[in-house]
């Protein structure tokens, strides 16, 4: 039964991918890519990757769809019919696919417990997390402590993206004081009321996800994205400058850098106790307590940077003056 669900979701994903390939109206392409991310999130839950499914749904379906829609608002609606011949791309893609299928012949079968992946490094994580780090969610333990430096690299990646978008789009942002397209939402009474109702629970849920990461699916990334989603809804419905008063661009830029500093700061602290970088055991009375404190601090830094990057990217995209009026939409 389990593999039937698996197969169904995968075939559904393939269908969505082909639909994206064929559609030319960019709006439906973006919507279908949101569907693709959500279905892959469902499939990831089915494959026991709950943390990844949470992140894929929040980041893949949520934020990237919002960014793509705001790009469409600034650029074009339809894709011009392709003039170039489709032969070479087809050959290139077919050969790559063939090489990959050839590569799967010696792979361990799907779900085979005796595969080398489950024999060498992973068993230690599963067995040692209970006493070394004392945290139920093994994925967060590995993410923040065993391979904590990967996550620092990852926070730096999202920080780089934030800086890059600021570098590219900050120049053409109008001052938020002028009336922007978004404030045309005044007459949406229903939306304004419901948003006021929803923003509280969303922020509360983001904080819950942030600090619940040790015990269940959750953690810095998901919390940061949900936190940013609350501000994006607020900016969408109440206009960019009211959102600007709540969370000004300058503050976002400081939070952006502060998250990375918190994360690397937690790592540097262990230098003074003559331990290697990112060794949290020095932070608390016992090694395990130190790991707890270290992981909470590190996840907090991650959440701050991710939230700040998503909000500043949305401000950058929403602040551009859209050449296209409401009717053309």
């Amino acid at each position, binding site marked *: 039964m389990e*593999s039937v669900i698996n*197969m169904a979701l*995968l075939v559904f994903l*393939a269908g969505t*991918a*082909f639909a*994206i390939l064929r559609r030319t109206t960019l709006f439906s*392409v*973006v919507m279908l890519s949101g569907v*693709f991310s959500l279905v892959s999130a469902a499939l*990831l839950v089915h*494959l*026991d*990757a*709950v*943390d*990844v499914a949470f*992140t*894929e749904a929040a*980041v*893949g379906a949520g934020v990237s769809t919002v*960014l*793509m829609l705001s*790009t469409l608002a600034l650029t074009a609606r339809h*894709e*011009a019919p392709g003039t170039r011949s*489709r032969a070479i791309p*087809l050959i290139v*893609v077919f050969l*790559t*696919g063939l090489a*990959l299928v050839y590569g*799967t012949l010696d792979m361990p079968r*799907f779900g*085979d*417990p005796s595969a080398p*992946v489950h024999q060498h*490094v*992973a068993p230690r994580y*599963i067995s040692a997390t*209970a006493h070394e780090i004392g945290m139920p*969610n*093994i*994925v967060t333990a*590995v*993410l923040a402590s065993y*391979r904590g430096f*990967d*996550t620092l*690299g*990852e926070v730096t*990646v*999202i920080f780089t*993206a934030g800086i*890059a978008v600021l570098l*590219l789009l900050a120049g*053409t942002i109008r001052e938020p004081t002028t009336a922007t397209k978004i404030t045309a939402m005044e007459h949406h009474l229903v939306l304004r009321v419901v948003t006021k109702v929803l923003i509280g629970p969303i922020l509360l849920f983001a904080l819950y996800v942030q600090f619940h990461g040790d015990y*269940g699916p959750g953690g810095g*990334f998901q919390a940061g994205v949900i936190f940013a989603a609350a501000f994006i809804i607020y900016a969408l419905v109440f206009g960019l400058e009211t959102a600007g008063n709540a969370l000004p661009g300058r503050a976002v830029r400081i939070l952006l850098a502060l998250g990375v500093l918190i994360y690397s700061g937690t790592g540097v602290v262990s230098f003074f106790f003559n331990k290697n970088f990112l060794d949290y055991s020095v932070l608390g009375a016992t090694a395990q307590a130190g790991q707890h404190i270290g992981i909470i601090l590190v996840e907090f830094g991650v959440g701050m940077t991710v939230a700040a990057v998503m909000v500043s990217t949305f401000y950058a*995209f929403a602040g551009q003056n859209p050449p296209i009026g409401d009717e053309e939409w």
Partner: protein
Amino acid sequence: MEFKDAFGLFNYWIVIVLMMTGLYIVVSRGNLVKKIVGLNIFQTSVFLLYISMGKVTGGTAPILTGKPEVFSNPLPHVLILTAIVVGIATTALGLALVVRIKNAYNSIEEDEIQKLDLAAENEVDEPGARP
């Protein structure tokens, strides 16, 4: 290769089909936004490859509940949490570039942009028009 064997690999074959669809969209389409969507599909299907290699039949999510249980492999999940963020970072940067290209060229079709570049190049033969 009897049926049970092939069935075991069927999962990976469909993931490969998804990867190739994403790659094909990136390579063959000229619209810049469509290329970014294709890149997204290509990367999301690589995530599915990693996670489906970590799945153990009958295993549950790697969250300790005190009861001895078979867990799926947590390491691919950690790697993919990193790769998702790399994917969204690339998407955000790509979309910002598309907005800037639209401001500069007033088009987001690769062929039109190349035509404009060539026209600018041999028309005045100095290094490109002001934006």
